[in-house]
């Protein structure tokens, strides 16, 4: 079954067309990677999938688990199992990380018709997930992402992913700003979610992350369109030739 079908997607942001006919299919159980240079439309794709206001679909469509996404709010998509790990996680002063996690976890459970968890159960789940990702108690007590390093913010994104157990996880340049140890931690977290009933979309500029999260398919995005597709070896080819070299080959 197809987890995600993107057909001829055109997206306009602030009057400018950024995605210009992008098509992509992710089958359940698969890990796909989208690679592309800066400005190719990678983040626009991730925001459009998550339902951000101001990202207008002017043509084409997105089917998520067989349903058209166009009319769904971000929270509805999240409740239906979509999760976006942000390239730039936001800082929220005055809201502790723990309080945020509890609120989000219970909002999701409510939306799915499950019973809310009490503070103790939340604490237990969070601690379990936090240990594996090297997220300290002290971080959980601080205001969400405020004063966190780049690596800490990314680890916290993956911690949320581990807690929410999404059906489709989208990672938007999760590798940027990570050292090699943090990269491995993050990759382990993602690989733990790699089960036959899930789908994962890894968006990245560099091939490095794909050594640790090995994709089933690789797509190259340029100027709002997929310009090349292949297996995991395509990532290595890109690394060797660069985006410009690949564009020459394609031409």
């Amino acid at each position: 079954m197809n987890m995600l079908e993107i057909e001829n997607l055109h997206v306009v942001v602030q009057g400018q067309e950024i995605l210009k006919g992008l098509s992509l299919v992710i089958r359940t159980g698969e890990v796909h990677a989208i690679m592309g240079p800066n400005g190719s439309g990678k983040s626009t794709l991730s925001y459009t999938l998550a339902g951000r206001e101001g990202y207008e679909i002017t043509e084409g469509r997105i089917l998520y688990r067989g349903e058209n996404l166009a009319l769904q709010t971000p929270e509805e998509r999240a409740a239906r199992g979509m999760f976006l790990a942000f390239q730039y996680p936001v800082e929220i002063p005055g809201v502790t990380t723990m309080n945020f996690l509890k609120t989000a976890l219970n909002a999701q459970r409510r939306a799915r018709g499950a019973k809310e968890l009490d503070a103790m159960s939340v604490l237990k789940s969070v601690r379990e997930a936090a240990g594996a990702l090297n997220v300290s108690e002290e971080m959980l007590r601080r205001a969400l992402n405020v004063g966190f390093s780049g690596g800490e913010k990314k680890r916290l994104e993956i911690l949320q992913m581990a807690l929410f157990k999404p059906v489709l996880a989208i990672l938007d340049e999760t590798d940027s700003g990570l050292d090699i140890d943090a990269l491995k931690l993050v990759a382990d977290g993602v690989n733990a979610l790699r089960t036959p009933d899930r789908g994962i979309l890894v968006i990245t500029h560099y091939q490095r992350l794909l050594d640790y999260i090995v994709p089933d398919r690789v797509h190259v995005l340029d100027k709002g369109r997929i310009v090349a597709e292949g297996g995991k070896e395509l990532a290595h080819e890109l690394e060797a030739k660069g985006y410009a070299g690949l564009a020459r080959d394609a031409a």
Partner: protein
Amino acid sequence: MNERATAEEFLLQDFAADVASRPASRPSWLDERRRRAVQNFREEGVPNRRIEQWKYTDLRGALEAQSAAVLAGPVLHSDGNPFAAISAFQLSISNGCLQEPSSQIPLEIELFDLGRLDDEAPNWVRQNFGEALSRNTMGEASLGMMRGGIAMRVTAATTTPVHLDFLQNADAVHCRLLLVMEPGASLVLLESHGKSRGLINLGVELVLEPNAQLIHVRLADSAPDAVQVEEVAMRVSRDARYRGHFSHKGARLSRLELAIALEGEGAEAELSGASVLGGKLHADVTTHIDHTAGKTASRQLFKNVAGGNSRAVYQGKITVRKGADGSDSRQTAKAILLGAHAEADLKPELEILADDVKCAHGAAIGDLDSDSLFYLRSRSLPEDEARRLLIHGFLEEAILEIERDDVRLAVRDFLESGLAQALESGS
């Protein structure tokens, strides 16, 4: 009768009726000063919007609207005590008059009932009462026309907080509070205003002698038709420290004015507060901090959330006098508007006459951050819940510095319930 006469006549007639209703009292040491205060009020009248410091807050208009209305019903109900969870020595002030305390006064505290001025007043009352200059005529009115009030002297460090529970259901009540903190004394002072109605006019004088420490937390939740005016004048001596927190969620019009003189080296004042407003409420916090001595420090953080047709005002003036070198002053005021009809006016002001000082100030008015809203929604929080969490975080910064856990919790609950009301009142 011309328009100008209305608000003053309303108050003066009310005062005359109050005096007539009481038995004649013996002459008091304060009579002359009070006569002068009434005279000052009579001459200058209720502050109006032509006065720079009152241009955002139409007190006269609010009083005129009130004097035309008859207060409905004598219901005197407090909407629950916001400090109920805190074990405190409680003093009730009903319609400006101090009630008999129901428990033993802590040993370190002396109390004098200002409703019994013809009694022999102790020296510390005579020396300090009515001494702090009033910045506006409402302060003069609170002295000249006062029905009663409290004078307190704290002589040493205390552990039990004192809770002043004000409650009112009269057209107009003028009341005074004097608190003298002796050298080295410390106190946690809690102040609440229940669901008071009418014009509540409170004049407060605080004296902090060297090394004294005062934590003052005021939660104002007056009825939505109340007009609440409070003027706090304070002297902070060498190495004394004042920490005040002021949160509002009621009153058709509320004006809190703080005038703080940092008079001795090492004196400190830290102010924080939050106004959470909906409907047609109006809350004005105006501060004057005067660094007259060197190495003095002041910090201010005021947060405002305004929904419906409400209006939040902050005016903060900091003066660093010539010679007050080494002083450090910080001031931040922020507002979030929940809708197109809400308004906020933030006006920080600095006057620096010394050479070597650190001053920082900032003010910002805005909507909730759209990046943050999207982030929270992508984590499956419905939009209204996401907004609420962001506002909660915004307000939380203003209460983080409250040192006592139990007091901080009480303030948080107070604001959370105010926020629910403000959000209900629509955008």
